[in-house]
């Protein structure tokens, strides 16, 4: 098991280097150059060249990338070109907001999808099943930023009970979390339902019923516990979506997260900040996937047995 985790850690290094290569080169292709954008209008050619030197942007693209890569290997993401501060510092200033929103949305998604999915499975082929599936499908098909705007219209503008943006206190996270959570709830409901349907037919449930366990305990203790295993697997990708897919929602609610920071960095051609943010995203994503794999093994003894072999 530990060997496996160690291997996965080592595997992360080439992936992260490759991501940095792709993003660095993409950012370089973008038209417009931050040095000439920032230089004073009457700057001479030589002065611009000097600024370039100071910002660490001199030399050919491969030279610059290699320099960036070696710094990256040392754990240094460089300095933001527009804010003149270490990228890592700026990232971690904004990251808690993104993380809060991500976990808030997952909480919303679980609160909606688990009861809905269980109800759909236990009332298979009834109107309850049908309604839950239609709801889930609508959640999946809705553009999240649209749902966010509709919620703002209803709860902020018409009813005036919740703030439409910013991040001051608990009230301000409710709408963004619901918005982001609704889409994920669609997917999770469908998965909960199908894995419940699978578990419900197992022999051990019949045994539990036969020995007189109440129906409620059969469903919530015996069945749901086993049905939750596939839900853990997609927890990783759900969190990934919440982290990266939140860009539009962060914009709608002017949420001070990393997604919006990255978009601004890309738009202002702040290469180091944009590349750094995307690399940090990737690290967190790979890390989460690894954690999910480990959690998966601990929850399901059958899988743990495979690793120890």
């Amino acid at each position, binding site marked *: 098991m530990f060997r496996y985790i160690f291997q996965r850690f080592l595997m992360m290094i080439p992936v992260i280097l490759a991501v940095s290569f792709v993003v660095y080169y993409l950012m370089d292709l973008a038209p417009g150059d931050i040095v000439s954008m920032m230089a004073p209008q009457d700057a001479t050619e030589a002065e611009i060249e000097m600024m370039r030197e100071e910002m660490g942007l001199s030399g050919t693209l491969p030279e610059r990338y290699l320099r960036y890569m070696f710094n990256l290997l040392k754990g240094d993401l460089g300095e933001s070109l527009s804010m003149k501060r270490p990228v890592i510092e700026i990232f971690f200033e904004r990251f808690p907001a993104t993380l809060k929103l991500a976990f808030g949305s997952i909480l919303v998604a679980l609160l909606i999808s688990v009861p809905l999915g269980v109800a759909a499975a236990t009332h298979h082929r009834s109107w309850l099943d049908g309604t839950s599936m239609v709801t889930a499908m609508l959640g999946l098909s*809705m553009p999240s930023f649209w749902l966010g705007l*509709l919620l703002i219209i209803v709860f902020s503008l018409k009813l005036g009970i919740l703030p439409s943006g910013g991040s001051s206190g608990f009230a301000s996270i409710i709408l963004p979390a619901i918005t982001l959570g609704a889409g994920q709830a669609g997917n999770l409901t469908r998965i909960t339902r199908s894995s419940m349907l699978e578990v419900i037919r197992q022999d051990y449930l019949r045994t539990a019923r036969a020995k007189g366990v109440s129906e409620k305990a059969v469903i919530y203790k015996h069945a749901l516990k086993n049905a939750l295993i596939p839900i853990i697997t997609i927890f990783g990708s759900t969190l990934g979506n919440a982290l990266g897919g939140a860009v539009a929602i962060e914009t709608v609610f002017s949420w001070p997260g990393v*997604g919006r920071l990255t978009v601004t960095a890309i738009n202002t051609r702040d290469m180091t900040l944009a590349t750094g943010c995307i690399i940090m995203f990737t690290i967190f994503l790979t890390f989460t996937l690894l954690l999910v794999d480990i959690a998966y093994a601990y929850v399901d003894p059958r899988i743990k047995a495979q690793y120890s072999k």
Partner: protein
Amino acid sequence: MSTEMKYSYSLEELKAYKKRSIASEVWRNYKKSPSAMIGLITIGIIIVVAIIAQLVYNYEVDIVQQDIMNRLQGPSAEHLFGTDQYGRDVLIRILYGAKYSLAVGIISVAISCFFGSTLGLIAGYYGGVTENIILRVCEVFVGIPSVLLGIAIMSAFGQSLVVLMFAIGLVYVPMFARTARAAVLPVRCEEYIEAARVSGMNDFQIIFSHIMPNSMAPIIVQVTMGVANGILTASSLSFLGLGVPVPAPEWGAMLSSGREFIRDYGYLTFFPGLAIMITVLAFNLMGDGLRDALDPKLKQ
């Protein structure tokens, strides 16, 4: 029914029989699901509407031209969905704009399906080092959140419809590669592949005439779901101002420009979003129906 049974079939007859029966079987299963049929019919209607709108409306006159006298009029008999801040009819713009979402969704999926499936088929068929390299490269692209990768590509190559299609196409290549590879794995060791090799077929022929048809089902499902995803991603890029450039009536962009007027003219955000949702929903329903139809075992 004729009393005379036919015992011998020519190879051509057998081939024709096999082709007809797979397609018709899938269709028979597909028809059984009302929601799948709703999806298919809705997609049909959207396509027809998109085509008619191109023929009836003139881009310069009906879609882009401003009419400030009539700006921001709420829904009425004359303008069913109202008019926007430039006095343009929202309904006409939405109908005309259907082509952007459809084009981006369908062409981007065609791109990702072509490259992704080819890579996946190669990876699954050859295995070993080739497979490892392809999977590792995919891992890199999966690691980058798709919207951010899309934004980076859009800003690198400039904003246009074509770039948007390629950006979204590229973003979903790894998904197809993985699906195709997973679909090839169980087929790879079948005896008929061995037989084909012995009979002198080269790898290319084997992949295209034996492996591909037998691992198509999951890819077909992925295609319909991919169109839905592509439309959603495209609309969020446009919403962020990085998709189809204005004044084209792309739905995400319309929504984004209506946002300014959200306080008093909510319909400007409501209708374009509704159009996106209906289109995406239709493709999702079709994808679900196809999955059930292609694999009846799953449904039970």
